[in-house]
Each structure stands twice: as C-alpha cells, then as structure tokens.
C-alpha cells in the first residue's frame, strides 16, 4: 500500500504541475491581461506601463518561470477591488464552496445509491422505469435552471426556504439540491448498471446457494464489489461539481470561491480570477488523490497494477 501511495503522490504532483501550467497557458494565450485589466479609455502609455509592472514585457519563458515561482509561494498578486492578497480572499471563501460541494455530494449519494440498487433489483418493473426516467430528466436539467425553478417554487411561491445567502441548514438545502441533482442522476444510472452486472457474477450465485438472505447477498457481496466504479465516478464528477458550484453560488448568492471568480471577471480583478481558478483546480486534484488512495483500500488488486 505504501508503494502504491507514493506512486499516486508522484502522479498527483505531476498533475498539479500540469494544472498550474495549463492555467498559465489559458491565461496568457487567450489575450493580453493588461488590456483586460485596464478600462476601455486607457492610453497606450498606461498599457505599456502596466505590462511592465505585470512582467508581460518579458519573454514567455521568463513569465512562465515567474508564474511557477509565484504559484509555489502562493503569491497571486493583490486584488484591485479589495486591496488584499488575492489568495487570502479566495481561501477565505473556500470553506463555503466545500460545504456546498460536500452537501451536494452527500445528498446525491444518499438519494442515488438506494435508487440505483432498487432499480436494479426491480429491473424492468415500474420502480425501475420511474427511477431511471427521473435520472434521465435530472441529467438533462442544467444547474442554473434547476436553481431558478427551486427559488421560484419553493422559496418564492411556497416561501418554505430562504432564496439566497449562507447561514444555517435552511440556506443550504436549495443550493445543495441544485448542485446535487445532476450528479445524483449520473450516479443512480451507474449504480443500477454496476449492480446488474455484479448480480450475475458467480460469487453472488454462490452466496445465494449457500442460503444467505437476499439482504446479505446484496449488501455484503454485490454492493462491495460495485463500490469501485461508484467511487471512481465520485472522484471524476467532483470536478463537475466544483464547476457547477460556480453557477450555483452565483444564483443563490452563496459566498464561495465560484461566485468570487465570476464577480472578479466582471470587475476585471484579474489576480483574484487567477487565484480562484488555481485553488479550485488544486482542490479537485487533491480530491482525486484521496479517491485514488481509497481505491487501493477498496480493491487491493489495483495497488499492484
């Protein structure tokens, strides 16, 4: 397990390095940050001056080396809007984003796993058709529309829950449903497929033949082996979840990193955009490392690959 963990750590370090490089490429290749940061009526002299301050007048190689150095030290510059270090601003808001993402994840798992398992056990019958129908519709619904409709129906018409902001559990419900629905839909479908596959395996037949109860067979034998693809999906989808958090936070005025990033784009607060993207991307990389390590625990065969 130790060797497996080290291998995964090295891989993660490589991906993290690649992600940082990708941020550099995305931010530098798509235009002139200095021109983006200045107001429309800025003079050429101002532009040249700002390019010099940002180091944009130097060669790409030098810029890249500086970017890597700054990223390593966590120095993304100072926010124009808040006059504070950009990274600090982002990290302040990270707990709110993680709270939302994990709430959505938890909600999705709690709803989707039983739904997928029940659908598999009732294959072809009404429950299966209904569950999978819901999943297919859930998968086709964009986050922001889901959020708007929940606000309209649950918060405005029924006035059951607050429309926006962060506070107690009541504030978390609608954003978590909004963010979790798509994931729940994908997860329910995968759980069903995986369960159907495991249920035809010989060891399940054996377990039944030895006279184990159906509950035992499903929980102890089938579910345990269905866990690997399900955990994989959770890892892969976490990135989508962080992306969806950007939208969800914007709709519900949830004070997280995603909302900060979007506001900063419109405020031309470039250092904050950069720091937000960086922090969210590294969060995703870290989650994937956790998932990889969890794999090794769930399926010892994976360690030796």
């Amino acid at each position, binding site marked *: 397990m130790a060797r497996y963990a080290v291998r995964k750590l090295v891989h993660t370090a490589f991906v993290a390095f*690649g992600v940082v490089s*990708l941020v550099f490429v995305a931010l530098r290749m*798509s235009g002139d940050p200095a021109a983006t940061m200045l107001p429309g009526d800025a003079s050429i002299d101002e532009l040249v001056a700002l390019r010099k301050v940002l180091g944009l007048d130097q060669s790409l190689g030098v810029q890249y080396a500086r970017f890597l150095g700054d990223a390593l030290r966590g120095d993304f510059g100072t926010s124009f809007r808040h006059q504070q270090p950009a990274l600090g601003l982002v990290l302040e808001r990270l707990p709110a984003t993680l709270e939302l993402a994990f709430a959505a994840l938890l909600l999705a798992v709690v709803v989707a796993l039983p739904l997928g398992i029940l659908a598999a056990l009732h294959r072809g019958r009404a429950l299966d058709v209904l569950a999978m129908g819901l999943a297919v519709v859930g998968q086709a619904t964009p986050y922001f529309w889901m959020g708007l409709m929940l606000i309209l129906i649950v918060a405005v018409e029924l006035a059951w829950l607050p429309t926006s902001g962060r506070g107690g559990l009541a504030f978390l419900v609608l954003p978590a449903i909004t963010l979790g629905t798509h994931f729940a839909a994908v997860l329910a479908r995968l759980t069903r497929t995986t369960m159907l596959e495991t249920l035809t395996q010989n060891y399940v037949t054996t377990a039944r033949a030895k006279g184990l109860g159906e509950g035992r067979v499903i929980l102890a034998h089938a579910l345990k082996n269905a866990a690997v693809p399900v955990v994989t999906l959770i890892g892969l989808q976490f990135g989508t979840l962080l*992306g969806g958090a950007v939208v969800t936070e914007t709709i519900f005025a949830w004070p997280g990193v995603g909302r900060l990033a979007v506001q900063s784009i419109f405020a031309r607060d470039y250092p904050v955009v950069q720091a937000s993207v960086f922090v969210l991307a590294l969060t995703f990389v870290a989650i994937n490392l956790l998932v990889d390590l969890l794999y090794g625990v769930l399926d010892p065969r994976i360690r030796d690959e």
Partner: protein
Amino acid sequence: MSRRLGWPLLLPAALVLAAVLAAILAPWISPASPTTGELGARLKPPVWQAGGSVQRLLGSDLLGRDVLSRLLWGARISLSIALAATILGAVVGSTVGLVAGYYRGLADGALTKLIDVQLGFPFVLLAISVIAVAGPGIGVLVVVLAVGSWVGHARIVRGLALSLRERDYVHAARAVGAGNARILLRHLLPEVLSVILILATFDVGRIIILESTLSFLGLGVQPPTPSWGSDLRDAAIYIRRAWWTAAFPGLAIMVVVLGVNLLGDALRDAFDPRTVASRSS
C-alpha cells in the same frame, strides 16, 4: 435491425428533429421579431393566463419581446454553437487519438499526460480563465467548448487504435504494402467511426448545457443576441414578476438535451453488441 429501430430511437430522434427544424425555420415561423420589443406590451403572461394574448403565446419579456420568438431564434444560436463545437472537438480529438494510438512513441506519451492533466481540471474553470482574458463572444465560446470536449474523443479513440493496430487485418494490410496513411484512413477510421458518432451525440447534449451555463453567467452569447442561456440570465432578475421568461428557455434546453442524450443511449445500444446482448439476456 428493425427491432432496434423502435421507440427508444424514434422518440428522441423526433424531439431532436423538432428542435433542429425550429432552429432552421426560425426566420419564417417566428410570430414576431426576437430583438425588437413592444414597450407597451412588457412582461405579458402566456396566452392561458389572465392578461395573455394569442399574439404572444408564451408571453413577453421585460423589453416587450416575444418569448416564443426568442426561443425559436435562440435554438438557432444554441444549436449552431453546440454543433460547431462538437464537430471541432470530435475531429481534433479523434485525429489526435487515432494518430497517437497508432504510432505510439513520444507523442503518445505526451498526449496521455496532457489528457491526465486536462481531466484534472474542471472544465468550467478552464472556460473562465480563457474567457476572463479573451472576453466573451461566440467564436471564443466555440473554441473553448471544443477544448473541453476533444479530450474525451482523444482518450477513447487512442485506446481503440492501440488495440486495433495489432489486429490481423491491419498486419495483413501492412504485409501487402499498404502505407500508414492508407491503414489509418481505410482500416482504422471506419472501425472507430461509430464510437466517435456516439461520443459526439453525448457531447452535443453536454455542450448545449455548458454553453447555456456560460451564457447564463454572462460569459457566453451576449445580448441582444437571443440564446437560451443569456435569456435566462435576464429572466433570473425579474423571476418573481414573470415566471414564464425563466421557465420556457430552461424547458427548451432540458427537452433538447433529453432528446440528444436518449438518442445517444439508443445509438450506443444499437452499435454496441455487448449492451444489446446483456439487454436480451
């Protein structure tokens, strides 16, 4: 084959066809202009609600523009962008994947690493970083969406090419003197074409959602151009006063994406004998 062309394929195909027809015919079937509104008829409800009229079947928005007309014209923009981005992503991704998987070597190693890195990067963040600098616009949007979708194609086609290159018929083709280009185009490409088609179908659905998401955030299609996502951005502001401006564009997205995804499912079942076999067992 006839059994496979049942409801699971025909129903979603009909939904998608309807959306495509709406997009193509928008200039002729729209009851009103999508961009010029009647300020006297602002925020009119749909026809079945009190105060609605037959002139505005689905009501009007804050600027008095006909919601139905904007929906039809929006289909044009949203579907064109999705189609362009899907094709761009599929062509680039499949070409890179096919070549890398066939030739192996250094380029293949580099590609695998690049795929790992991009999959370690949530797409919306990538889009935000590019659009933050390049500024929003339809051209930028298409490129960004294609950048988001090429990896899927590259990864899967590369895997297929890796196994196909060792097949007997490829060895045989090489033995009778076929060049690399001929093997790639005549022997490998036809084998992976169905997979590319299925992947691309699912991509269309994903990309429609991503495009509308970016447009909703104000990072995609810009007003006054009608697009489902940017219309919802405006609608969100006065959703309490006019639910119809928010409900219908989202419903349009949902129905089209549902149709495309179900079509993808049906195509996959039709092309992949393994799923078909497991279904009939």
